[in-house]
Structure formats: C-alpha cells, structure tokens
C-alpha cells in the first residue's frame, strides 16, 4: 500500500472539493469546530454522539453504522476523505471504523484541519445536505481490533505499542496534559510495551512522516517486524493514528488497535501493570 492510497494531500483535496463520488467528512469529538467553518461540502460526524454506543462502552453496531452513513448521504461506492482536529485523531479513529465495517474507499486528509487552517484554505459555514442513501456494512473485521484478553496474552509475545506521552506511560499522568488529571484508575503501562508517542509519527503541521522515517522510528523503539502488533493509548483514538501509520502507511500485516486501551486495562483486576520508563 502506498501513501497515495490512504492519504490525500490538502492540494488534492482543494482541487476535488466538488468531485462527484468524493465525500469529505469532518470527524471531531466536539463538532463546534465544524459549525464554525468546515471544508466546503463536508458533512460532519460527531465521534462521541454518533460513533459510540450511548449506553454500553462500545461502538455503534453494524446496523447503527449503516443507519449513520445512510443518513449522512454516504454510499458504498463513495470515496470518503476523512479529516478533523486534534491532528486527525478522531478522523483516524473513524478511518479505522470504516475499515472495520468494510468500507475500502476511505482516505485521510494529510494534516487534517490543522494544515488546512494553517495553509489558509477555504472554510464554509454553509449547511451541507446530502441525499440519504442505503448504506450496507459488513460484519466487524476483528483482524484489526484487539480485545482485553488477547492484550493480556500478548505480554511478552506480540509487539505492544503504547502511544501515549512518556508521562502517561511511566505513570506520572493519567491523561494527556491538556486534560484534568483526576481519574480513578491505576497509572502505568502494560508490561513489555514500548512507548512510541503518537506524535512522533506526525510532523508539526499534522501531516504524517514519510514511510522511511516511520519505519526507522518504530524499529529504533524496538518493534519486531516479524511479530504481530497491538497499539493502545487511553481511549483508542491516538492509537488509531498509530495503527494507521503501522498498518496503512508501513503495511505491517497484523496490527490491531486496542480501543479499550488504558481506561480499560488500567481498571482491570488482577492484570500486571508496570510503572516507570520501561525496560524496552
């Protein structure tokens, strides 16, 4: 897989704003950014209220995903270009959902909202409506989704890549530094995990680093390319960003995102937890 298959540049995006069959979708945790100005023609998906189950801690199910995409006016044959704030974290999470539910024609806008804004490209406040479709999703492809039991089994076996900041990894902080820290769970990381913060995969403007730089980064951090890999963070969206780098940009074949991530693992009874900078 090449970079062009999974990423579009801001230049390409701006040239293809009105292209039939291309749907731009902004994905954010807080959609006020979209409401204040979005890429012309883009529809929005609210990560929290539209992609998460409102009651259980899980995603929308297959029927829910079909209903959502139908309502957004996205059809199975559309080429979907996802972008968002937070260096594309939630866009990368949505990308992973689209793959999970079998939508192959999906790409990320390299650099997301940040590069778009820093470049001074056009933003629109116009309401976007697309005709409803009848979208059909596949069953979840669990080849790219890890659950807690296989994460525990992966200790000392698979590559575990903790993509949180070093202070979260070592147990000094329980959340990224822009969020308050009060939370009832254990701090630290999964034993044998390596710490490669998601941000190392991105340039300052939010674009992904080159494949050569990424490969060097993960190998230097101790990833074993002959082994399967599970990426995790706190709630699974930063690790979607790294999953994208490992699976989509580097083409590693067996990479899963553990969306339960530290908020699940760090609350499990009886599992091993390591604190400090780690031995790996």
């Amino acid at each position, binding site marked *: 897989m090449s970079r062009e298959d999974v990423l579009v540049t801001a230049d390409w995006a701006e040239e293809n704003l009105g292209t039939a069959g291309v749907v731009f979708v902004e994905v954010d945790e807080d959609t006020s950014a979209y409401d204040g100005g979005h890429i012309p023609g883009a529809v929005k998906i609210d990560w929290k209220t539209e992609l998460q189950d409102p009651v259980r801690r899980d995603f929308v199910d297959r029927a829910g995903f079909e209903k959502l995409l139908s309502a957004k006016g996205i059809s199975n044959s559309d080429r979907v270009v996802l972008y968002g704030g*937070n260096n594309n974290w939630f866009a990368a999470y949505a990308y992973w959902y689209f793959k999970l539910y079998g939508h192959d024609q999906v790409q990320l806008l390299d650099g997301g909202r940040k590069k778009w804004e820093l470049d001074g490209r056009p933003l629109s406040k116009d309401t976007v409506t697309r005709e409803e479709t009848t979208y059909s999703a596949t069953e979840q492809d669990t080849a790219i989704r890890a659950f807690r039991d296989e994460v525990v089994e992966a200790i000392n076996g698979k590559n575990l890549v903790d993509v949180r900041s070093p202070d979260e990894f070592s147990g000094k902080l329980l959340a*990224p530094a822009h969020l308050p820290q*009060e939370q009832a769970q254990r701090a630290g990381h999964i034993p044998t995990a390596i710490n490669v913060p998601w941000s190392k995969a991105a340039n300052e403007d939010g674009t992904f680093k080159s494949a050569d730089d990424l490969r060097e980064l993960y190998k230097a951090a101790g990833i074993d390319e002959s082994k399967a890999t599970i990426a995790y963070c706190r709630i699974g969206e930063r690790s979607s960003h790294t999953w994208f780098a490992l699976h989509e940009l580097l083409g590693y074949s067996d990479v899963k995102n553990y969306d339960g991530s530290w908020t699940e693992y760090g609350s499990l009874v009886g599992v091993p937890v390591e604190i400090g900078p780690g031995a790996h």
Partner: protein
Amino acid sequence: MSDGCGAPEQTAALPAGIDLAKEIVLGGKVTVDGAPVGGAFVRLLDASGEFTAEVVSSQDGDFRFFAAPGRWTVRALHRSGNGEASVTADGPGLHPVAVAVG
C-alpha cells in the same frame, strides 16, 4: 471534563472542579502584535523538546495545560506565524505563560 482525549474548550476561567492546590496548570494567551488571537495551535513540549499535548486557542487567545513538574515550552502555530515561550513549574498552581506569534 471531557471523557475523550480531544481538546476541551479553552477559557481564561478554570473549569469547575480543578483544584489548584493539587494541579499544575500552565495557561496564558497567544498574541499577534499584542492582540489576543484565536485559532492558534498551541503545543506543549517537554524539557527535551518532545511533544506532549496540543490545544487550539480560544477566540480570546486563551490556552491551558495540565502538566507534571518541570520545564516546559509552549509553541504556537498560526497562519500569521509561529512563536514559543518557556515556563518552569515547580509545583501546583497556575503558572502563567504568554506566547507571541507572527
């Protein structure tokens, strides 16, 4: 607080429930030619220059981070230019830091 990892709304007033006797808060404004500027991408870098967190400044230019003790650099990116400033936080409380870009 947000239960996600996304950047919460940036305001000059601290959100309810933040205990400055316990939390280390780094906060301030981004300015262009002395005037507050919203929509800047404000990045918190640790003592080694490593990225730690990023928020977008509010319409009034405000930003805020919750950090561990140490020396930090706050770097802001904006259409009009970039800028950075350093701050050292020894303990809990609000540690002001101002960043001029352009």
